[in-house]
Structures are given as C-alpha cells and as structure tokens.
C-alpha cells in the first residue's frame, strides 16, 4: 500500500477536498457582519482632503445558507451591486467582516484570495459587456482553468470547456466562435459557464437577467435553478424585478440606502412584510389583472431617496415614511424580530413600528 492510500484524508482531486469540508444544507456558508463600504468624497487638486463619503453599503449583516438562494431587492442606488462587489473582493470593504465557512475573507490578498475566488464566482448583469469581444468562447470559458491550472489538467481543458457548454445548453461545437455571434441569452449562458468552470459553491448573480428579453429571462432562470440542483450551489441573486426574485429565492433581503431593512423567507417578505418600505415596494409591482389592480391599495411614496453621502439620522427611511415619529429620528432601528409580531410576520425587520399591512 502506498503512503497516499494510507493517509486518512485520501483526497486527491479538488472535488474530494471540497466534499471533505462540505457544509450541511441549511448551515451558513457565507456570514456577512456589519459590512461597510464608503466611497470617499475628496476636495482639492493637489492636496486631496476627504470631505465626506458616499455610504453605499452601511452596516449590512446576513447569512447565506448552503444550497439556498438569497434574493436581494431594492431600488437603483441602494447598494445592491456594491454589496456584490465587496463580497467578491472586487472592492475592498471599509469595515465589517465576511466569513466563508468560518474563515474571514474580506482582508485576503494574493494567493489566499485567489484560492477563495475558486469558491465564490459571479454572473454579471450585461451579457454584452461581460465577455471579452477579442476572445473566443473556448478562451473565455477556458480562462478560469488557465488561472487555476489545478482544476483541470492541460490536456483535458478543451473537453472541460465543451462539457460546460453542454451543461449550460449551448452546442459544444461553438467553442471557436466569438461572443458577438451569439444572442443575449446565449451570451449569458456563456457567462454562467465561465462562472461554473471552477466548480464554485457560491455564485453571486448581479441582475443576471435584467438585460434580457422576458422570454429569455425565463430560460436563464430555469437554467440557474437546474444548475443549483446539479452542483449544489448557493446563490445570492440581486435583482430589481420582484416577481423573478420571488420565483427563484428561498429567502429575500430588502435593501434601502445601504442598509438591509427586512429579511426573511420569500413568503414572509412577499405576503407578510412588516417594514413600510417593503410594503411600498411590493404595492408598486405591476398587476396585469385590471380588477385586481383596482381593488388593491397602492402606497405612493413622497420625495426622493436621500443622498447616500448624507443619509438621514436614525431610521434612513423616515423622511418618506408615513409611520415616522420622533423616535425614528432619534434611534436607528435594529434589524431584529419585534416582540409584538406573530406568525409569519415574526422575521427580521428594521422598523420601530413593524407591522403587517391591514388590507394585505
């Protein structure tokens, strides 16, 4: 018997190593605590002086569970995409912690960061700009293997790329084509194949379907769901389309002005929202049925989203909230379960006066 065979951890391939540290379903795989990303605002030409900061992400905490899909919704400019970039370590976090399987990853650099990148990958919003126009599809999907040569031996790479094309529903013969020869949906499949190449455990999808036609959106969403089952992936799914998020997500987090205002299972958020912002957001979803449209009660918010460089004191939503009182100005509401809530309404909500809407 060789020494290799005698070792208790006879794991030789990367897949087996991954299985050895498998996190059971339902356990947190990514723990985000008080994550902050401020972009400094500077003044002066030669001697730059910081005069403030755009608080794009300002103290966001949540867990991503193994095998689940966490949807993140919120209007434009609320910090969704910045959150994704910070989680991917594409932007350094100002403060806070991101733990992958209990290991702090937000301050990693060099080869340690490169190793973590194998496990967390991203699918981009615009399939027209996220693929290098000068590289063939084979080069684009094969590039992860060149960067991480341990994933696929040199001789197997072409085969691995063709397998990936097959997995995402593209003809493996298209390997020598250029991105501009594909439609938007096909390009997004190429982007997904690139994200899958390193066999990651977490895929962060930053509005992966918002640049696509509605019919193609469905195909890409179905593909993502199919792949989740096949590869045991955990998704963080960022979108502004509430119906798609409801469809794909197990849990949903709602963001407003750099903060998470409410988080819970899709049912808790969509049918038992307790935060006024979530209620207003949901009431704005277009309803195709005219009779249902008349019967429902729309909440129209007044004013604009305050500047993230100078957010309101206390609760950030208070300037547009119909429930706002003096307490909201003084105290920043914590994202916790309020004692008085019952049933499905008992989930994390950052409102001093959290309550379900009376007429649903």
């Amino acid at each position, binding site marked *: 018997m060789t020494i290799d065979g005698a070792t208790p951890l006879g794991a030789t391939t990367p897949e087996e190593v991954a299985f050895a540290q498998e996190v059971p379903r339902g356990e947190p795989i990514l723990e985000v605590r008080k994550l902050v990303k401020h972009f400094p605002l500077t003044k002066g030409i030669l001697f730059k002086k910081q005069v403030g900061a755009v608080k794009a992400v300002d103290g966001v905490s949540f867990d991503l569970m193994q095998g689940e899909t966490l949807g993140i919704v919120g209007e434009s400019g609320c910090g969704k995409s910045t959150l994704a970039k910070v989680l991917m370590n594409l932007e350094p976090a100002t403060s806070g912690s991101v733990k992958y399987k209990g290991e702090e990853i937000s301050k990693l650099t060099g080869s340690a960061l490169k190793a973590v990148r194998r496990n967390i990958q991203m699918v981009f919003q615009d399939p027209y700009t996220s693929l290098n126009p000068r590289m063939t599809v084979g080069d684009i999907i094969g590039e992860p293997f060149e960067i991480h040569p341990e994933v696929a031996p040199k001789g197997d790479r072409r085969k691995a790329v063709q397998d990936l094309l097959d997995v995402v529903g593209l003809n493996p013969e298209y390997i020598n084509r250029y991105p501009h020869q594909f439609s938007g949906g096909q390009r997004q499949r190429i982007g997904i194949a690139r994200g899958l190449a390193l066999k990651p455990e977490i895929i962060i999808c930053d509005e992966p379907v918002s640049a696509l036609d509605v019919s193609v959106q469905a195909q890409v969403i*179905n593909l993502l769901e199919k792949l989740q089952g096949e590869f045991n992936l955990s998704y963080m799914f960022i979108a502004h389309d509430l119906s798609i998020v409801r*469809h794909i997500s197990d849990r949903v987090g709602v963001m407003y002005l750099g903060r998470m205002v409410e988080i819970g299972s899709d049912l808790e958020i969509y049918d038992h929202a307790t935060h006024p912002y979530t209620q207003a957001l949901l009431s704005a979803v277009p309803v195709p049925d005219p009779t249902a449209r008349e019967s429902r009660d729309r909440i129209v918010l007044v004013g604009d989203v305050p500047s993230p460089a100078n957010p309101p004191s206390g609760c950030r939503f208070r300037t547009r909230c119909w429930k706002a009182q003096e307490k909201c100005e003084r105290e920043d509401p914590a994202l916790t379960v309020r004692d008085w809530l019952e049933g499905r309404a008992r989930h994390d909500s950052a409102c001093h006066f959290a309550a379900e809407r009376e007429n649903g």
Partner: protein
Amino acid sequence: MPDRNDAIPDDHDPLRNIQPTDSDHLDYVGQQGMAVEQETLIEPDPVKREQARSLWGDAWRDLRRRPIFLISAVLILLLVLIAIFPGLFTSTDPRAADLTNNYLRRPDWSDFFGAGWFGYDGQGRSIYARVIYGARASITVGICVTLAVTLLGGLAGMTAGYFGGWIDAVISRITDIFFGIPLLLGALVLLNAFATRNVWSVVIALAFLGWTQLARVMRGSVITVKQSDYVVAGRALGAGTGRLMFRHILPNAIAPVIVVATIALGGYITAEATLSFLGIGLQDPTISWGVDISSAQKVIRQAPFALFFPAAALSITVLAFIMLGDAVRDALDPKLR
C-alpha cells in the same frame, strides 16, 4: 426546491398577481428544462459555419473594398520596395556628379527612367536617381520613429491608465512636460547635441519628443477598457496584472493607438524633411528628400524642377500614409462602416 404555487394562500391576494399570468411565456414553475430547450440557437449558414469573425477580420474585409485603402497600400508597397531595392529602379549612381555637362540641365522627358529624366541638380547629379535613393531615409525615419513612439508611448500610457493613482499622476505630468516642447524646436536643440547626425540620430530625437501623443491616446483607451465588465470578470476569476493587461485590456485598447500612429507616420517623414531642410537633420552626403529640397531652394528661379521632384515624392509618401491611417480608422470603427 419547494413548489411555490402551493405556498400562495389566497386567490384574492393582490400579491399573487406578481406571478406572471401569461403562462405560455413565463411559466417558470414545473417546466424546468423544457423552456431551456426551446431557445432557438442562431444556426449559421453551413458553408460559413467555422468562419469565426473578429473586429480585425471585419476591418480587413471592409478595408479590401475601400479604394482609398487600395491606392495607399499599393503606393506604400511601391515606396517600401524602392527604399529596400533602389537599384531596381535606376542604374544611375545618385552621387555621380558631372559638372561640365549636366549642371542644372532641364528634364528630358524622352529619357524614361534614365539619368536625365527629371533633370540634373546644381552639382550635376541625376535628380531621378536621388529621388529614388532618397526614399530609404524618409521611409526608415517614418517607420522607425512610429515603432519607437508606439512602444514608448503605449507602455507609458498603459502603465498610467492601468495603475492610476500617483503612478498616473507622475506619468501624466511627465507627458505634459514633453507635450509642451514643440517637436521641431526640441529636435533642433537635441540634434545639435549629437556629434554625428545620421538617420538614427534623427529617429532618436523625433521618438524622444513624439511619444506623448500616443501615451495620451493609450491612457484614455486603457482607462475606458479597464472599467468594462469583462476585465472585472477576469479579476473575479483571480487573473493577475499581466493577464489582465495583455489578454484583456491591450487587445481591446490598441485600435485607436494604431490609427493615430499610422496618421502620425506621415508627420514624422515631414519632420525629417523639415529638419534636413533646415540643415540640422540629415546632411550631404546622405541622400534624402529633405536635403535635396534644401539645396534646391537656392536655385529655385533657374531650376524649379530641382525642387519639384523631391517635394512631390515627399508629398505623395506622406499622403499615402495619412490615407492608410484614415482608412484603418474608419474600418476599425464599426459605426462608420
């Protein structure tokens, strides 16, 4: 994953209507996999099937149909041929002077490709032979200066644009300083410092002062490309600086640099001729159009042809390179196709 249709409790719940009603198109639930296969793939013409197209391929296809490109390309090929093998075009020695017989003799149109075709200059040398032999200096200066400024400026612009921050600030300020020096005036001063002045000293002087334009173009282009999603995607995969620069950014940022360089090439040939004309660039016995234009100006009243032929050769060469640059620029910009 649980079937979410079951989870919706109440028919009259308005939020239920978040679910799309047009089930033919958007019924996500329960049809997984089927909808995926419905996507119609763009099936290409079976004949053209494996013909991969790229920006450069398209540009080349477009260029071949442009008369301006064809004319300039033929001219440039001819000029390069003349520069490399001048002996193929004339058998006369450009330095052979016959002061007794040929001094400022007028062009003899019947003497095709012969010594007297374009007449004789002030020292009785064949102007035709000198125009042919003068091509080498001009073309060498033009091509070498262009290559040097593309490398130098490209590297400086790429470094500044990619790294940004203080590196960009330092490189950009240096670029600004060099940009402030007028090309001809700076070259006059520089060439004065050289002990011997030949083609290479002119190349060094022009390259030293000319790289700024390309550095600026390259910097701007790199900054634009650097922000694109595919570069971010490369970083997310863990790609290093070298891979990002040379596989993702450079191929996508180089097009405007090539265009500017091609157009600038004509300018460098003119600059060499100007310096030679001013007596500070190339000098006798080096044969160059600029040197000949300079010596012909003294006899312009008696023998205008002595000025005309080298000047015409210079103009045609510069025009050919500028036309080529124009055509390449148009072909590389899909919006102009």
